[in-house]
């Protein structure tokens, strides 16, 4: 059956665009998460018609479809489970149309986030979502995960910047959702599609909303003797009615490792560093800068420094955005977690994580989208040491539970995928989850699209998932990389 599927795919795509050798299957058997799965075949189509053909072949041959962009997802959304065909969308990489007068652009899903921004900048425009992976993640992946980023604080998440999405459904038909205008008729199904992690179809085109670049930008770097002081300033800035574009917090462990890399001039002896970006018109930026500096002074900031020029500003951000990569210098393995608390409870949440770290004997460093209450605890470990992974997973679950007790959420921007799937019942009732499953089934009644992600398939009424014919167990969950 898999051999037959491979022949079908090769006939349409050519043999170079269908991978089935053991190395390729291993490579595409995971994404940037800590989870490992496996797949039967990998297809790399170049256009919409080829995507349609891939989906139809998968259906005919009883394979599940796992859509994948650049594979930078951190929750296992594109980690395939056995019995899957991985459809990689990175070769659909044309920017189809940019229409400044309508503040929109049509792009194929494989366009890299930063490539689109570079094309837009000379027009004075941008695509606002800025995940840390923007240099390597695709627009299709950003839509599938409803990606965030530091500037979500002022500009909102990906969902706030999408006019329309074209999707290949599980039955191989192509449908467009939303429209180019401000409103469209019918139910707003874009909301279901954005953040659906590949479970409702394969994205083949996206109409994005464009945002004007701000006239003035200023980044302030604040250093603190305690993490709590830093978090307190963040809450105070929000409560004071200021509207920064981004507020990011890094603790000492992160600051030290990224300073070696970015040479941004971070104070390496501070316990926490906060970056606050202000944008807009010059007058408002200056006023807000004074207000932030005053709040910082009265809350014991030990360093208050404004970026001296655009190059300095870029270095400050480079440090923040490279934290994920730089951390490998101090820890052989780490799990980057993603949880949210109401933003006034940041101090409490950080304290809760400290307790967990102590109890589990782990080092946990922090990068925080502090203005949003979105924590990214980096749980460091060495997978070779026996039992380490178990402590990491226990810590993760305890952090999730603590955040939920504070009225938070199990994910702010990485998504559920496989990593958090089994935590969904901690946040939602059985009725909530059933309705979510009904909504998924409205798009994919036969469960071809990325089964087992977001929601567990066990006990669901909507028939068995595709992939079973290839021998997949009913509720595979992948395995943690050891």
């Amino acid at each position, binding site marked *: 059956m898999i051999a037959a599927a491979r022949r079908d795919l090769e006939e349409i795509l050519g043999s170079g665009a269908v991978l089935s050798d053991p190395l390729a299957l291993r490579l595409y058997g995971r994404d940037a998460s800590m989870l490992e799965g496996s797949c039967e075949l990998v297809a790399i189509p170049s256009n919409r018609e080829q995507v349609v053909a891939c989906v139809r072949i998968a259906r005919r041959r009883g394979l599940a479809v796992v859509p994948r962009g650049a594979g930078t997802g951190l929750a296992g959304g594109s980690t395939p489970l056995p019995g899957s065909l991985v459809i990689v969308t990175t070769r659909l990489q044309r920017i189809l149309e940019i229409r400044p007068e309508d503040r929109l652009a049509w792009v194929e899903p494989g366009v890299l986030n930063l490539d689109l921004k570079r094309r837009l900048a000379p027009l004075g425009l941008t695509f606002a979502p800025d995940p840390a992976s923007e240099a390597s993640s695709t627009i299709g992946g950003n839509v599938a995960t409803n990606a965030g980023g530091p500037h979500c604080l002022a500009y909102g998440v990906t969902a706030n910047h999408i006019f329309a999405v074209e999707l290949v459904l599980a039955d191989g038909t192509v449908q*467009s959702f939303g429209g180019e205008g401000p409103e469209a008729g019918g139910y707003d199904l874009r909301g279901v599609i954005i953040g659906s992690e590949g479970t409702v179809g394969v994205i083949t085109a996206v109409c994005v909303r464009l945002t004007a670049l701000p006239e003035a930008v200023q980044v302030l770097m604040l250093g603190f003797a305690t993490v709590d002081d830093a978090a307190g300033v963040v809450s105070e800035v929000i409560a004071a009615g200021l509207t920064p574009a981004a507020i990011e917090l890094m603790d000492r462990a992160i600051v030290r490792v990224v300073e070696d890399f970015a040479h941004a001039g971070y104070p390496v002896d501070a316990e926490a560093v906060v970056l606050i970006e202000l944008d807009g018109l010059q007058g408002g930026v200056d006023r807000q800068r004074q207000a932030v500096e005053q709040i910082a002074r009265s809350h014991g900031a030990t360093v208050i420094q404004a970026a001296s020029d655009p190059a300095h500003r870029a270095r400050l951000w480079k440090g923040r955005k490279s934290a994920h990569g730089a951390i490998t210098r101090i820890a052989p393995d780490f799990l980057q977690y993603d949880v949210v608390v109401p933003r006034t409870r940041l101090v409490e949440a950080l304290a809760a994580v400290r307790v967990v770290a102590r109890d589990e004997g782990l080092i946990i460093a922090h990068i925080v989208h502090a203005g949003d209450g979105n924590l990214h605890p980096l749980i460091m470990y060495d997978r070779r040491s026996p039992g380490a992974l178990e402590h990491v997973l226990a810590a993760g679950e305890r952090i999730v539970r603590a955040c939920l007790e504070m009225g938070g959420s199990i994910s702010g921007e990485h998504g559920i995928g496989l990593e958090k799937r089994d935590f969904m019942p901690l946040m939602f009732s059985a009725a909530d989850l059933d309705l979510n499953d009904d909504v998924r089934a409205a798009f994919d009644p036969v469960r071809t699209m990325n089964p087992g992600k977001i929601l567990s398939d066990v006990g669901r009424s909507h028939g068995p998932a595709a992939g079973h014919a290839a021998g997949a167990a009913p509720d595979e969950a992948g395995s943690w990389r050891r």
Partner: protein
Amino acid sequence: METLTPGSAAELVDLLRAASADGRRLLPVGGRTHLDRGNPTVVDAEVSVGRLSRVLSYDPAELVATVEAGMTCGELDAILAEHDQEWPVDADPAATIGGVVASGASSARRLRVGPVRDWILGIELATGEGRLIRGGAHTIKNVSGYDLPRLMVGSLGTLGVLTSLDLRLRPRPLARRTVIASGTVRQAAAVVAAVPLACGVLATPDSIEVRLEGWPEDVEVESRAVARLLGGTFVLDDVAFPSRQPWLDVAVTVEAAVVPSALVELTRLVSAPWGVLAGVGILWAGIASAGRPLDELRAAVSAFGGVAPVICGPGGLGQGGPRRGSGAWAIQERIKAAFDPVGIMAPGRFWDGS
């Protein structure tokens, strides 16, 4: 007609279960300010959320409020104003929060603040079947399960009855000013491109109204920018935006949504009173009756790929949404069936008459 007034979500759930069992058709109502949106529906009773009107939680430092669906926009606005905050949707003060969300009505300031769907974080809903479900969260950021809050926007009461909503708030701008000048629709588009602070640029047959909000020094700078672009401006501080809406004083008011670049041509096809939101793609037009003039306007809007529902008066929604029989339409039908399997919720009111 009988109006049912449940006093709690639990009572509402019981009522909906019983109605689903009996096939009793229901129309959810709030402040009755947006009922003209939607196609005609015939129901056996109305369900009012008027008794569900409490604030469930509001911490100003959080910029999030959780309110019951029957709270009015006027009440909410007064509570938020005490803390210099706002839920930037600008509906009729008598409208309820649930009603505004279900009708999908957005602010005239949406050029900068965005549509109503960007200001809802979480919902609690009693589905037509009588399942009490939650979607979204109480936090600013959240990706957990499908985005059910957005699915409610513009659903016109056809999926269930909203019981409470988590709302994202924002600080109320310190300075709010409307600059009025004369000019064309094309000039209004130029203002959008050149004046980043503008949160609404409304062109009418007589004038252009530019709404500026933000820090006082920025508003001053931008007022001068508008004056340079348009000439002959005068300034009104602290007035409502739009200052006048004569298209609402006519028998039928259409709210067309098209790409912004279509507005110039579209306004040539309509007669006064009308107003357009430049850079957004909204056209409000007042027409004398729901007959031929409405059909002609809809045909023109449709040629630009837009939709033209009536928001005030008779005429319903017109064409829009997925084509009957298409794959997207089938998805819509299955979603409706998941929430309201018996079909008791506002039958006929939705886009394709379902």
